[in-house]
């Protein structure tokens, strides 16, 4: 026998349950969606432009909103280290960077910053790399990193050799970080991709050279893991890196790697770079191995869930 009281009680509980479910529905749905699409790494090649590769990869990764905070600030860290035009492959493709900036705003970013602590004179680098025009076009603020005044002394608790660094304040303050390096040969670390690109976030990078480059690159990655790594492998400098001498050093390889795992991204990029250079053992690159052993990401590519797309 159901009394009136029971009826009220059941209705009430059902209502409460529905409200509970409704309240969480969006979050739950997002989770289910993400787990369906979750790749450790998306690698795309071919196509007509790096922007096309990016668009393909980001949809496979489940959209930019997975990686940045709505209404938050985003730091995009391209490689702008050299006073060279994009054809030399010494700096990240400016069209790609513009596309990422726009995608961030579409996904609800309130403010997008970019900077690099350059090797050549900073204004020359910002200009010649095409990054200044890109920033203006896409609405990002390209800020300087040309003086110690922008950097904050920060301790790196996870570092084995590098215990402290002067880190750009935006790297510490921004809500999300997207690391967009360009894939290049490098005279002393064999290659430079995502983890090495974070050298442009610190002021006192001479210290890395002094204390052992490979270990320091891995150590710095313990400080803050970027929310997303996009490696530009469109034009790839295959020798004379990281500055390059002539455009003959560059190959149009048309690759793009996207991952939330910097170690996985760099490992995959190393395999590709090895195809066209004299790199004998791309799995033996020291800083990648160290980072893998320190648990900063996975370099066992065979065991990863990788989406490979040829356009």
């Amino acid at each position, binding site marked *: 026998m159901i009394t009136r009281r029971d009826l009220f009680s059941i209705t009430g509980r059902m209502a409460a349950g529905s409200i509970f479910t409704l309240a969480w529905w969006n979050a739950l749905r997002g989770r289910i969606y993400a787990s369906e699409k979750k790749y450790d790494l998306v690698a795309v090649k071919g196509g007509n432009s790096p922007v096309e590769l990016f668009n393909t990869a980001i949809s496979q990764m489940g959209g930019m909103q997975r990686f940045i905070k709505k209404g938050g600030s985003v730091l995009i860290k391209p490689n702008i280290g050299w006073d060279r035009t994009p054809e030399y492959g010494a700096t990240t493709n400016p069209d790609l960077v513009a596309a990422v900036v726009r995608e961030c705003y579409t996904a609800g970013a309130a403010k997008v910053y970019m900077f690099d602590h350059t090797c050549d004179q900073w204004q020359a680098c910002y200009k010649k790399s095409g990054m200044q025009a890109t920033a203006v076009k896409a609405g990002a603020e390209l800020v300087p990193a040309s003086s*110690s005044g922008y950097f904050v002394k920060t301790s790196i608790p996870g570092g084995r050799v590098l215990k402290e660094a002067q880190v750009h304040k935006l790297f510490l303050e921004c809500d999300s970080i997207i690391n967009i390096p360009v894939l290049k040969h490098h005279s002393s670390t064999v290659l430079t991709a995502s983890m090495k690109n974070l050298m442009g976030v610190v002021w006192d990078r001479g210290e890395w050279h002094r204390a*052992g480059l490979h270990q320091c690159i891995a150590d710095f990655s313990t400080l803050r893991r970027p929310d997303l790594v996009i490696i530009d492998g469109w034009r790839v400098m295959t020798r004379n890196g990281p500055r390059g001498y002539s455009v003959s050093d560059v190959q149009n390889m048309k690759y793009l790697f996207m991952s939330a795992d910097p170690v996985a991204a760099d490992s995959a990029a190393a*395999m590709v770079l090895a195809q066209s250079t004299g790199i004998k053992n791309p799995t033996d690159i020291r800083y990648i191995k160290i980072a893998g052993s320190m648990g900063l990401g996975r370099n066992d590519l065979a065991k990863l869930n990788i989406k490979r797309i040829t356009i």
Partner: protein
Amino acid sequence: MKYLKPLRIAVSLILSFTIAFLFIDYYRYLPEFLRKISLYLQFIPSVAAFSVKASGAAAGFIVVIAATVICGRLYCSFICPLGFCQDIFIRSGRSSGLVKKRGYSRPHYVLFYTLLAASALSCILSGTFFIRWLDPFSIFGRFMAFGISLPLIELNNGIASVLVKNNNFSVSVLNIKPSVSGAIFAFSVFMLIMLPAIFHGRIYCNTICPAGALLSLISRLSFFNLAIDPSSCIKCGKCSSVCKSSCIDYAAGHIDTARCVSCFNCVSVCPEQSVRFARRKIQAAGSKRERVINSDNTSATITRSGFIAGLILLPNMVFSQGKQAGAIYRQDPAKQKKYSRKSYSSPPGSISTDNFNSRCTACSLCITACPTKVLQPAVLQYGLNGIMQPFMDFSSGFCNYDCTKCGEVCPAGAILETGIDAKRRIQTGKSVFVIENCITYTNGTDCGACSEHCPTKAVQMVPFRNNLVIPEVNNAICTGCGACEYACPVRPLRAIYVEGNPVHKTAELPEVREVIKTTEPDFPF
């Protein structure tokens, strides 16, 4: 006639502010013709440039001489930036009531023309060593480059650091640390000219300045000059009291036009329009007075100021060179392999150190225009002969492979404009690798900072023990840009440094190898 003074003020304002601004930011904001014309007309740099290559592009001084032949020393009031600065001080002295009246004073022609002769002679014999201390443009330049830049940079960085705290990046922090002693020195020399100006007007221009002295000789013959019309003059003395050169003897109705800097104050102030700018009349009377010798006083002042300048100059400059950017990696000095640089590099386009030392007037414009700040004023890097001239200081920067700015701005032709292709092949020095000091050798870790920065890959990383790589230098393609030395983190002595070429050479172009083709169709992982 009254328009002459406002015209003078307008022209000098435009030219002097242009030049002052060139020392702050050469490349942005100002239209090119204004930059070019303001530098083109600077007398001593122009003479220097003409002596390198006689061409219309360096003939600004001929224009000035022609103007002087016609109208007298227009240069000193219309064009010279140091003259303009003195005018500001002279005016402030008058308007503040510090100086009531200035009358006629006797000239110091013996000293004036002796210094001119000495300057000319020393230029012929040993280049610019002597004249660079007297040239008004260079004195002004050093004041802007060192004396003014320090407070400006501090101000800029103060504002920027406040803004940066609020994530406002509109003003960028300048990573330049000008030496305080350099600023004090340049400021002192400047004030040694400005303070006497308050009380004695253009005394520097009529006693020391070699450009002033030469133009003074020429102006004695000018077609037009200032003269007092005795028929209408009421001898009120106003002209004499506003004369910056103290060259109007109103009682005698005479203007000493060799000292007149053509400021036209007298024309403006004369109530009867008796002071006129007109065709020169032969002056019989009064000319004898000009030859009265009275150099004792001034030469004493000069000796004194020279002594003070020397006192400040050397010790301060030496100290300022010592404190460079914070050391990164100190090795035990006892264990380091010792070496000493035989010669420092002069800027690309200066052909040779000797050529450069004899032609540069040390105006410091290139130092302020250099984007990478590799050009720094020398103390004794070139020896005594190159004091204050820019040398390539690889502890403060390195020469950008794609930059030709120092040659573009040099008004004296000491650094020639070569164009980018030629500049990339100028070898101002050669890298020397000192393996015993290299981190890879001493610590057994990878570094390679030198090779990273090398624009021609003259420094390459080659296999070394334990899977390490170590630099190797190919001097044939090295340009001596100093990127390797700048980047090397080892101190006190670096593991790679640039030995300057006393005579610049031509570097070979690096071999451009064929593009490697990839044909792998599939993902390699």
